């Protein structure tokens, strides 16, 4: 028996005396414990369809059903009062816009407990309510749930707010959760965690979920069954993501569910973490008094193995200072920088290779010196290194890796083009075989064509040597193209940016 069965739903609005049909003859059903995916491009009618289920659309919309059965009761025949009893208790919603979906002037605690007040009223005490709220927040993966109770939404990030929304929806243990594009506004990382959370709720509480998204791949990954909506109509059969349509009660459906659950990416491995780090410059002024200029405040960031982490920020926001602290050129006032074993000695590539490379020396010499310095830092004896290959060999190999001919080794910096210089800058950083490379505005000084080539080179080197990059730029376009995740640094504080 289906939990929800919608038969021939139509939604229309009155457009200047004419009836405009927005959703036409939509029928679908959801079984107990099933995750039903609803995909469609933007404007196809997904949101209207989902909101029409518990009839939360405003009166501007005319909604008709042939029949709408939920737990064997007719939703389409219910009075507003009866519907209020079902909304938030049996059918709960989470929406796309985490930033605006919470009431800005009511505390998280008050908002989260509201479904309990509305649906259980006096049957539970204040203490029980508080405990339930804390448990629900914790269940949704929020840290410090007690602290959140008296917090207002504007203090929370988008990801946190969406978790609050989910916790609030799940607090009454509803039978059906309608999730309308709930991950669209979130960054990739948070998105995956929210998806895991939905799986957790289904496993733990057996809640049925209607998961709505325009992202077909995402839906395929999570849902047991997928239907597609286009121009307000369900496309016949197009929803079958596999050769047939297994329901979760059949053998095949169960294996599919398992598979969906096990499709998780491997857990990312952090190689560098900066925790609650603060830094200020201390200068003695002419009176001998120490002047303190705070630059970084409680900076937190994690670099995972094999990823490119972008850091954007205006000039003067503290990007370069952050890099210096990470590389150990400056000591943090507070907090710590931890680098995983085997990933020590991160190297830097600078924006302006001309000034960072000694103009008097040949390129071959510069590279050799970098290599020797690197060995020294790591405490490797030169004789141990040269047993496998000579310095000259190492230099030639490196030049080849950055796409330059060996003849370059005998030239000096001023005899090179801008693109070649930038490649040399990369080579000097990589020759000591680091695992983490910090790229400080690596393409800011070169033109667009060269920029593309350098970015391509960087990404191929990352694959080849298993590098992790921290990529600093003021240019959002470059960042978007190259980075897996982006941190924004502003007034010395960092936050994760949503894509």
């Amino acid at each position, binding site marked *: 028996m289906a939990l929800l069965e919608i038969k021939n739903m139509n939604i229309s609005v009155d457009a200047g005396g004419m009836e405009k049909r927005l959703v036409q003859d939509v029928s679908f059903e959801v079984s107990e414990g099933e995750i039903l995916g609803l995909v469609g491009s933007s404007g196809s009618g997904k949101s209207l369809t989902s909101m029409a289920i518990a009839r939360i659309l405003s009166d501007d919309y005319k909604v008709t059903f042939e029949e709408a059965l939920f737990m064997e009761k007719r939703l389409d025949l219910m009075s507003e009062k009866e519907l209020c009893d079902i909304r938030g208790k049996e059918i709960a919603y989470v929406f796309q816009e985490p930033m605006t979906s919470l009431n*800005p002037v009511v505390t998280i605690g008050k908002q989260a407990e509201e479904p309990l007040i*509305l649906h259980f009223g006096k049957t539970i005490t204040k203490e029980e309510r508080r405990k339930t709220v804390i448990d629900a927040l914790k269940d949704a993966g929020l840290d410090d749930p007690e602290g959140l109770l008296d917090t207002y939404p504007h203090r929370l990030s988008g990801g946190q707010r969406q978790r609050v929304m989910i916790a609030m929806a799940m607090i009454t243990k509803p039978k059906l959760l309608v999730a309308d594009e709930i991950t669209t506004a979130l960054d990739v990382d948070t998105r995956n965690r929210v998806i895991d959370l939905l799986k957790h709720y289904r496993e733990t509480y057996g809640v049925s979920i209607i998961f709505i998204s325009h992202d077909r791949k995402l839906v395929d990954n999570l849902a047991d069954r997928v239907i597609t909506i286009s121009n307000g109509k369900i496309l016949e059969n197009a929803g079958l993501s596999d050769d047939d349509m297994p329901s979760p009660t059949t053998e095949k459906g169960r294996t599919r569910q398992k598979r969906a659950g096990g499709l998780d990416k491997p857990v990312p491995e952090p190689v560098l973490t900066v925790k609650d780090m603060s830094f200020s410059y201390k200068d003695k002024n002419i009176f001998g008094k120490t002047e303190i200029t705070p630059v970084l405040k409680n900076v937190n960031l994690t670099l995972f193995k094999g990823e490119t982490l972008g850091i954007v920020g205006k000039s003067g926001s503290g990007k370069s200072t952050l890099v210096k602290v990470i590389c150990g050129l400056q000591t943090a006032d507070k907090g710590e920088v931890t680098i995983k074993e085997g990933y020590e000695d991160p190297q830097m590539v600078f924006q302006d290779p001309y000034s960072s490379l000694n103009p008097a020396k040949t390129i071959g010499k510069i590279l050799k010196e970098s290599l020797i310095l690197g060995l020294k830092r790591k405490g490797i004896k030169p004789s141990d290194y040269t047993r496998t290959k000579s310095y000259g060999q190492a230099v030639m190999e490196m030049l080849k890796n950055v796409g330059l001919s060996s003849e370059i080794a005998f030239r000096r910096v001023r005899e090179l083009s801008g693109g070649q210089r930038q490649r040399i800058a990369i080579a000097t950083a990589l020759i000591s075989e680091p695992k983490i490379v910090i790229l400080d505005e690596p393409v800011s000084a070169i033109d667009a064509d060269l920029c593309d080539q350098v970015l391509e080179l960087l990404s191929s080197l990352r694959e080849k040597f298993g590098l992790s990059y921290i990529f600093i730029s003021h240019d959002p376009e470059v960042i978007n193209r190259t980075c897996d995740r982006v941190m924004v640094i502003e007034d010395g504080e960092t936050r994760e940016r949503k894509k």
Partner: protein
Amino acid sequence: MRYVGKKLIALLVTLAAISFVTFFAFTIIPGDAATNIMGMDATEEEIEALREAMGLNDNIFVRYGRWLLGVLRFDLGTSLQYSIGVSELIGGRLKATAGLAFESLLIILVLAVPLGLLSALKPNGALDNCITTLTQVGMAVPQFFLGIMLTYVLGVLLHVFRMGGYVSPGDNFGAYISFLFVPAITVAVPKLSMMTKYLRDCIVAEKRKDYVRTAKAKGNDAARVLSHHILKNALIPSLTFFAMIVADVFAGSIVCEQVFSIPGVGRLLIASISNRDFPVVSAIVLYTAALVVVTNTLADILYRAVDPRVN
């Protein structure tokens, strides 16, 4: 707390600036107190002697300093036309104005919120259109006309209101309150109309926001969505608007006091201007300006206290 401190300092600086501008403005206006007092037929010497005695010949900053010290001690000089202390004079008139102001504000408060709510229940519905039309009329009707109409209907036709029957609160408090009620309506109507319209627009704007959809999805019925979610959000911006009304009403309504013969600050201002009674005029200007600045500061502080988003 630091914010409140900052605000109070800004308030003091503004008040000092206002006091200086007021003082300065009244010293450069042609016409001089000494001539005024002595009358047109006094001799030059007599006037000059009085000038000297009144300290009018001193340097402007010295005179400002003296005047400011007086202001701080509530000694604003002597009224030229009534020959009594200015603060005493204004204090007496303030009884009428304040009573009128309190009653008007009460009417505005009691009616604006429910009217705004009713109007916003169904935007562009019959009730909304009805209330909106009324508010438009209320804003457009001239105060003297409204005052006269009320006097005519309530006083002449229904005999429930006696024209010119102002009683001082010391003599008969009940009569004072009940007499001021009709003038208070006259003062309140345009402001009530504005406030109702403003509140209605705020509520209608809030209704479209995403958190309202969330509240509905949680199982709140329409009334509770309004009372528990929309109202607070809509009232916060209305606070600043209300502060403006408060300052305005306490400054005294010239038209209304004239129409109902109420001895309030507004009427005093008119009489003093036509008699060139500058100590009184400057005191009233100072009072009005200070009123605006103080209420606005209070509104800002209150705003911060009720809106969690401004930290």
